[in-house]
């Protein structure tokens, strides 16, 4: 009977039967998105944007989201943990370990595949390092029961070294400067954008100085050699039927039946929350409602847009109730990612953009300004598109480094609102305590710029120390 006990599965693949050929390699490489996409669908916004001044209370119960914009997170309510970021790293590590031994028809496809895995690993460590500082460093896939279960956090400087190594490795591996059709996989221009972003961070936050600023500027300017441009109409960048447009460098793909909704489903408004006396114009902007308004654009953010800024209406809607001719503010909702309506239901399935050209332009301006160069060309490129015919009223003129820096930061708020960038921008520019109302009273409490490590994470790994101050 013993022979009968040796069964192999029909409907699943086991560890010893995978990683044999090119198709396996591509399927395995894509699995990075199995873990990464659900993180991008809402946690990426929470880490990158939620603690900033962008959002405030919405119409619906905030269910703990207020802990972010009120900046009251602690070790017990520490926001999303890092496990699925590490699963993404595991998938990247697996690809990096296995792909070199697999034969590809085209060698360039193999190096592109490896380059994508390295870029992904760099991007995810970049999230980790900006959020928690020191984090455990894992560069090999585990393949069974781990020998020892605890692992200490690695110094954040070493993490940044790994990120930069990975990016250099990737940039040397990418065979060309082209994009995949969907612009939803890593490419050399996207890796350069990431490299620019990383170096701006290390220049300003890790004492990287001029060297890193120059590295940032070089990488960002290399992006401009690729097929990228600003779209004429700001709103078009984000439209569901315009995915993979030429402003996009890298986006994470969302699709019906393939993925869940992205985070705007907790920033939009459901129809039954809209009173009948709301002004017709707002109603029209929103169209068929959907999602739940659990948090919403803050008044502070809304007031930083002028009426002639085409980004205002493309970013959020303000609803006013009209009673006896008096209109009263009622609610606001993010419209940047409004998905599409299918069979009566609004589906929030817009791609989440990690890098786009306007972001790159503003980073170039930031690097130039920090290096003492004139940033106005890039800033004005962005403003020209935003204000169209009224651009002349908003022409940017080079000023002092400090004034320029402030202007760039505010331009980034208007350009990149709700794209999951604001909190990290505030930290990078050193302005979190100045600009986030809930942090005004915490000047000097620098530890708040990092996140607490969730108790649940520490309870599974006794060697992980809590960030000081929490």
């Amino acid at each position, binding site marked *: 009977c*013993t022979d*009968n*006990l*040796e*069964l*192999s*599965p*029909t*409907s*699943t693949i*086991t*560890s*010893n039967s*995978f990683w044999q050929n090119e198709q396996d390699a*591509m399927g*395995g490489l*894509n*699995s990075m*998105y*199995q*873990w990464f996409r659900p993180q991008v669908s809402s946690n990426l916004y929470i880490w990158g944007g939620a603690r900033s001044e962008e959002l405030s*209370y919405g*119409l619906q*119960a905030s269910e703990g989201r207020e802990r972010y914009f009120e900046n*009251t997170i*602690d070790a*017990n309510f520490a926001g999303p943990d*890092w*496990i699925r970021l590490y*699963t993404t*790293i*595991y998938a990247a590590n697996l690809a990096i370990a296995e792909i070199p031994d697999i034969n590809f028809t085209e060698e360039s496809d193999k190096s592109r595949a490896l380059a994508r895995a390295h870029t992904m690993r760099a991007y995810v460590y970049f999230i980790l390092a900006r959020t928690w500082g020191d984090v455990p460093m*894992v560069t090999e896939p*585990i*393949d*069974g*029961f*781990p020998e020892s*279960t605890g*692992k200490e956090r690695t110094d954040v400087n070493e993490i940044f070294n790994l990120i930069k190594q990975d990016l250099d490795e990737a940039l040397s591996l990418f065979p060309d400067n082209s994009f995949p059709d969907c612009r*939803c996989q890593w490419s050399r221009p996207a890796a350069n954008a990431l490299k620019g972003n990383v170096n701006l961070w290390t220049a300003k936050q890790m004492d990287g100085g001029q060297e890193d600023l120059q590295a940032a500027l070089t990488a960002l300017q290399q992006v401009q050699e690729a097929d990228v441009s600003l779209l004429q109409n700001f709103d078009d960048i984000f439209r569901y039927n315009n995915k993979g447009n030429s402003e996009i460098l890298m986006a994470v*793909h969302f699709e019906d*039946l*393939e993925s869940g909704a992205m985070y705007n489903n907790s920033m939009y408004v*459901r*129809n039954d929350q809209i*009173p*009948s*006396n709301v002004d017709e114009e707002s109603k029209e902007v929103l169209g*068929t409602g959907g999602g739940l308004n659990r948090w919403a654009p803050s008044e502070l953010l809304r007031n930083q847009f002028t009426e002639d800024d085409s980004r205002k209406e493309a970013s959020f809607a303000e609803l006013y109730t009209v009673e006896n001719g008096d209109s009263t503010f009622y609610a606001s909702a993010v419209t940047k990612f409004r998905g599409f309506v*299918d*069979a*009566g*239901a609004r589906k929030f399935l817009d791609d989440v953009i990690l890098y786009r050209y306007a972001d790159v332009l503003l980073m170039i301006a930031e690097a130039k300004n920090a290096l003492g160069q004139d940033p106005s060309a890039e800033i004005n490129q962005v403003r020209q598109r935003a204000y169209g015919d009224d651009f002349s009223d908003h022409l940017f003129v080079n000023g002092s480094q400090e004034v320029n820096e402030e202007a760039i930061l505010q331009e980034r708020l208007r350009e990149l609102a709700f794209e999951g960038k604001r909190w990290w921008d505030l930290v990078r520019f050193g302005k979190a305590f100045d600009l986030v109302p809930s942090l005004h009273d915490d000047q000097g409490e620098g530890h708040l710029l990092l996140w607490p490590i969730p108790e*649940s*994470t520490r*309870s*599974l*790994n*006794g060697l992980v120390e809590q960030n000081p101050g929490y």
Partner: protein
Amino acid sequence: QDQLTVKGTVTVQESGNTLPGVNVVVKGTTQGTSTGANGHYEIMVSENDTLVFSAVGFATQEVAVAGRSAIDIAMVASVAELDEMVVIGYGEQSRKTLTTSVAKMDTSVLNNVPFANVSSALQGSVSGLRVQTTTGQPGASPQVVLRGGTSISNPDGATPLYIVDGVKKSNLNDISSNNIESIQVLKDAASTAIYGARASNGVIIVETKSGQRGTTQINYRSSIQMSQLGDFYDLGTAREYIKFARMGMAATGEKHPEFLGRLDMANGFGTGNDLTKNTAFTTQYLTPDNEHKLNEGWQSMPDPLDPSQTIIFKSTDWQDKLFRTAMTTNHYLSASGGSEVATYRVGAGYLSNEGAAIQTGYRRLNFDASGSVKVRENIDVNANVNFSNSSDEQVFNINQIFQRSLALPSTAKFRYEDGTLAPGQNRSIGNPVYHLNRSVSENNLNRLTLGLNAHWQIADNLSFEPSASLYTVQGIDNEFQKSYFFSANQFIDSRDASGSHSLFWQRELDGVFTYDNTFGQDHNFSAKAGFSYFDRKNYSLFAAGRGAATDNIPTLNASSEETAVSSSTSHQVIAGYFGRISYDYNQKYLLSASGRYDGASNLGGNNKWGFFPGVSVGWNVHEEKFWSSIPDVASSFKLRGSYGVTGNISGLSDFHAQGQYSVGSEYNGQPMVTSTRLPNQDLKWERSRTVDVGFDLGLFNDQVTVLFDYYRRVTDDLLQSLELPQYTGFTSILTNLGSLENKGVEFEIQGDVIQNRSGFNWSLGANASYNQNKILELPENDNENNRIGGILVYDRSSGEYVYKGGLQEGGRLGDLFAYQQLGIYATDEEAANGPTDELVAGSDKTKFAGDVRWLDKDDNGTIDSRDRVYAGNILPNWTGGFSNTFSYKNLSLIVRTDFALGHTIYNESLARFNGQFQGDINISKEVVNQSWLSDRRQTDVPRYYWADQLAQNNLFRGNTRYYEKGDYLALREITLSYTLPTRWVKTLGIRNVRAYATGNNLHYFTNYKGLLPEEGGQDSGRYPNPQSFIFGINVGL
């Protein structure tokens, strides 16, 4: 004295069946006879004699002849159990010589209630089993766990192995209770070791009915049942809701004015509703346009926030809409009989069970046939076939229906002005009549068991029993969402549809040799040796689509777009060799040893095989000479002891050890092949070592029996998901780590308290079981006590912050923690002097009168997560039941109760009603009658806030007041039955007729405020278990 001939028929009182083999003896003589195949006897007596009727399993009866020539007797099943036969693994044994722990269910439990799921009959009727009704859904299986189970990660998921007529099954679903002959539970390892592979969680052996020699007996059983809820939530009326919700909104608005706009909106308490189909609620200000509604049953009240305005509304009781009086009918017809050469039994049944909630139900058809033929003098061949076809309808979401919809604010519209049904706020807190009608869900199951076995008496002392069986389960499900209004103004017409087809297919082949002999006078010896082969496959096919053009076709052919297609198959083989030897010396000294060697395909390559031995000894003390010096009251006494090792791999999926890459998902249309499970070729059998000591005590000539067991089971090498540190990227890996102890005691007392005094009998059965678990060992993980999970709280005894709960060595499973409510602040001043409460939402932490005063456990002036206290445990430690049968002549009364003690339930529903976490859910009467008001300051219910979690967080954080004791005593059954006198029915050619009336699940005696107190842990809405009233009749021909 005159001799006369007395004739008569002996029947079984419970069933009315005639009873062959009853000894009929003239008292004080050896003169006697026994009843024939049809229950008849005939005996010569003197007119002043007394007849004694006795039979195994029945109470002995004495009847004075008093000159009569016809005496019919209805025998009452005796609960005295010391001489009963007990089915054990691959055999049968008298309890007299049994050395292991085996409980036998009193099958009279099955007589009256038409159990849609037979497992429910185990509730309170067998010691050692925790049986919990976790839902009132008809046909649903209760949770059955033996002696606390063996699982650390899922203490409720440790299901016993069921063996029905020799066929291994994972549940007793869809078996007709009318076809059950006996149910027994093998509890200790020595009794279950012979089933080695999957025996750790106990083995429940079920035998179905088979034919008996004699004339054909035809039985018909039928009952009709009405079910309805015994308890409802105490919810506010529309008027009360509007009052408190508007005041609660204003209360939240004191700190958060941004929410005050809701007062004018189209929600449950807001005045933005109108008479159109655009709003879901009736609440609105009185205007000339709507004042006519006051003549149509609408009510009015002044706006509590602005008494100058009048609010009008219509009230609907949603519990009344959701629940109904449900009808259940049950029919079962059987015929059995046989000759010296062959016996047979055939039966067919139909059960239709409506759920107490609308649109729910369960229906089942059963066909049962069994037969036995003596093909040669020494060879019997038996075959049986059981087929069932069942289908059910369930609600689409337990929480959304049994917490939210039933507590939809009573101001919601039931119908619009044009008479069509309104959808309620939205589907997740909707009008249940509307939403349950818009979704179609049909689950059909066909189960077929084919069994064939033989008994070959090779020689006088040697026999061989081969058996083969096939068990298949075919599932066909179809789901369809008709187009619907998600909310008043959102119409969804994607018309999602899905169909699935699954096939479960299990083959078994067993062969057992048995050798029995007696050496000398007193050395009784028997031995068994056998093999077993088990082979199971699963197949499933699933397809889903959407975009149908019509609501009228619920199947996939109408879908215009395919959304998912998938099929998969899986396979498992378990092979084993087993044996047992039993020896006794003159039934005085008893010894039994068994063992099994099992191999399973899904274990790691390094550890496929495991050996599971068991040994037990017994001593019938009453067989000793010195026993005569013991007072007569103690008639028998046996000491038992056993030790054994059993295995378990129920938590292991088919190819688990080999790791897994998952397929089927895509990124931008490209396939993703994802490593989702780490391989572990070292996976091996989970091993439970059980020590069991006990005694069987007979009192009053064994009319009362007491069974006692103490056990300690330690399960090592637990197949447990080891939670991994998060940097690995995996949440867990399945390993053999850790060790869990369960120990406890079990009592069973059964006896005939009163017997045969002028025809009145009273028999009593009681059982109680106590179980306590303790985690002995966990994998090393750098934490103190190798703790996994848990929370950091202040410990007053040590003065330190320590981790409690979760899993820790030395700890228990299922501990709960919450913030302790000490009281409610009566005044703002008192609140201002209290500790700072970090859990109040927002940056303004000010506390007010009406807020909860929390225990500041560490006295640091701040309420934070470290102030949480132990709030109970989810598992009951005491379970048991009582049953009483009173009979007087043809009348009998049965009262059965069962209980569970020690579990705590987090009544999250009540907290939600009191704290409005939903935004739009009804309030409980506690809010109305007890919540803090400026003129009601002394209370233990805080001020009512809209969205408590956004306001003062008095309830949402987990408040000890809502961690309620689940202790209950259930009045499970009261039956009054009457067996028509034989002489009345005989003339009609009817053998017997029994009619009865039963009340089932009549009442829970409990302090728990929710609707179903049986399961610990969080209650966020449960399908309540309804009361049932049953009228039934059994007819025998």
